[in-house]
């Protein structure tokens, strides 16, 4: 026969164990929420063992809706997919700076870039294809954007369009063999970037990016004021 006081102690221990377990689960959930709310401290640019090269970033400006080339020294690997990703990471690092003309969240923007050969039939139909030899090297880039970056991207036709054009323009300026670009978000198709710009279509870099004829930047990275959209007074 178990004494009454031992039964009470046993039940109290049991109840306190359940309460402590519930409390610990709640603490764990709260800690996870706090961690998710903090911006990812992972460095924006992965360390790359490659000599720095001069790269042209097509930098967007929200104030006047323009795209302008900016020359930067970027460590660019020789391998093409890593090279494309390094270019885009540098572009978004530029936008994450405090005086950015197109401010975006300080978050990793690009998970992966996949490069695939453009199917021959599509190659033949492209307006910029001038010869068979040039089209055989054309590539389609599938850019897998980071979900957190997309979720924190400002919403608006202008700001979203400029982000996409900036990506397309930067790839076109530095890797002209990339003639088409498609977008994924965390590996899944998504309708829009932040409610406006279409992410479901295939973009042609030669057609969709407004042409900038020359790059007239000084070596220290001054921006050439060549507007792409037409600004009326």
């Amino acid at each position: 026969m178990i004494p009454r006081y031992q039964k009470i102690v046993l039940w109290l221990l049991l109840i306190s164990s359940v309460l402590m377990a519930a409390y610990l689960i709640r603490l764990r959930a709260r800690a996870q929420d706090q961690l998710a709310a903090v911006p990812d401290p992972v460095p924006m640019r992965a360390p790359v063992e490659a000599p720095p090269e001069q790269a042209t970033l097509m930098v967007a400006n929200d104030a006047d809706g323009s795209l302008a080339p900016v020359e930067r020294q970027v460590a660019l690997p020789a391998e093409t997919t890593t090279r494309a990703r390094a270019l885009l990471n540098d572009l978004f690092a530029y936008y994450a700076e405090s005086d950015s003309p197109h401010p975006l969240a300080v978050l990793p923007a690009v998970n992966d870039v996949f490069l695939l050969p453009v199917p021959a039939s599509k190659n033949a139909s492209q307006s910029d294809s001038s010869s068979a030899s040039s089209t055989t090297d054309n590539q389609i880039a599938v850019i897998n954007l980071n979900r957190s970056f997309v979720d924190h991207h400002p919403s608006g036709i202008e700001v979203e369009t400029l982000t996409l054009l900036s990506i397309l323009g930067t790839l076109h300026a530095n890797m002209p063999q990339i003639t088409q670009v498609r977008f994924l978000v965390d590996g899944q198709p998504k309708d829009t970037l932040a409610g406006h710009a279409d992410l479901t279509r295939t973009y042609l870099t030669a057609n969709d990016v407004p042409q900038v004829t020359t790059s007239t930047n000084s070596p220290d990275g001054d921006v050439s004021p060549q507007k792409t959209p037409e600004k009326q007074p």
Partner: protein
Amino acid sequence: MLSTLLLVLAGSWSATAHAQQMPAQPAYPQPSTAAPLQSPLPAAAPPAAEPRFMVVLDPAHGGADAGAILGAGDPEKNFIVALAIRLHALLNARGIHSILTRDGDTTLDNNARATIANSTHAAACVLLHATSTGNGVHMYTSSLPAAGPQDARRAFLPWQTAQASYEMESLRLESDINSALTRQHIPVLLARTSIMPLDSMACPAVAIEIAPFDVKTPLTDLTYQEKIIEALATALQAWRSDWRMQP
């Protein structure tokens, strides 16, 4: 998925007087998954003896889709529908038939918006957005590659690229609106973009994104709003004349 759908239309409406007005007008596509229309939305208009000048105003977002958060913390969906209702009233007062794709805080997907525009045989489709970024009015036409003359006469249009056949008309409409806004001394930015439902609209269409006039004049400034509404109404009146003179 939708790009594979070649949408119906062709025969019946091209035999109407509207077809006499615009003989090269292509068929209007219909989506396979169109959302049910809300009560204030119009049903497809029956063929009329006279081509009817109809303007479709599409206030963006609505319902669960709040759009951008504007400077004062207001969601884009509320600001833009209020402005669209005022423009709608002004257009009707000036004898221009117009309809709104939504007049309340209702969720409407892009296919349903394009369906309204296409089934109404609209002479002008104006997509209305707002943003706190930049200044003045940003005006966009579709960045789709323009369809060639042979494509423009096709009886069927792909749903996701229907706007490609209306590029020239859309640019003319944009020009009329640009002129009217410039006369009101409102800064205008002209560009091209790819957004839904613009690309699916089989009508002359522009997307208008209204930004603050400047640092001192926010979106909530009523005088600024009146200027924009007046300019848009004036431009659509001018477009009615241009539209009637089109071959």
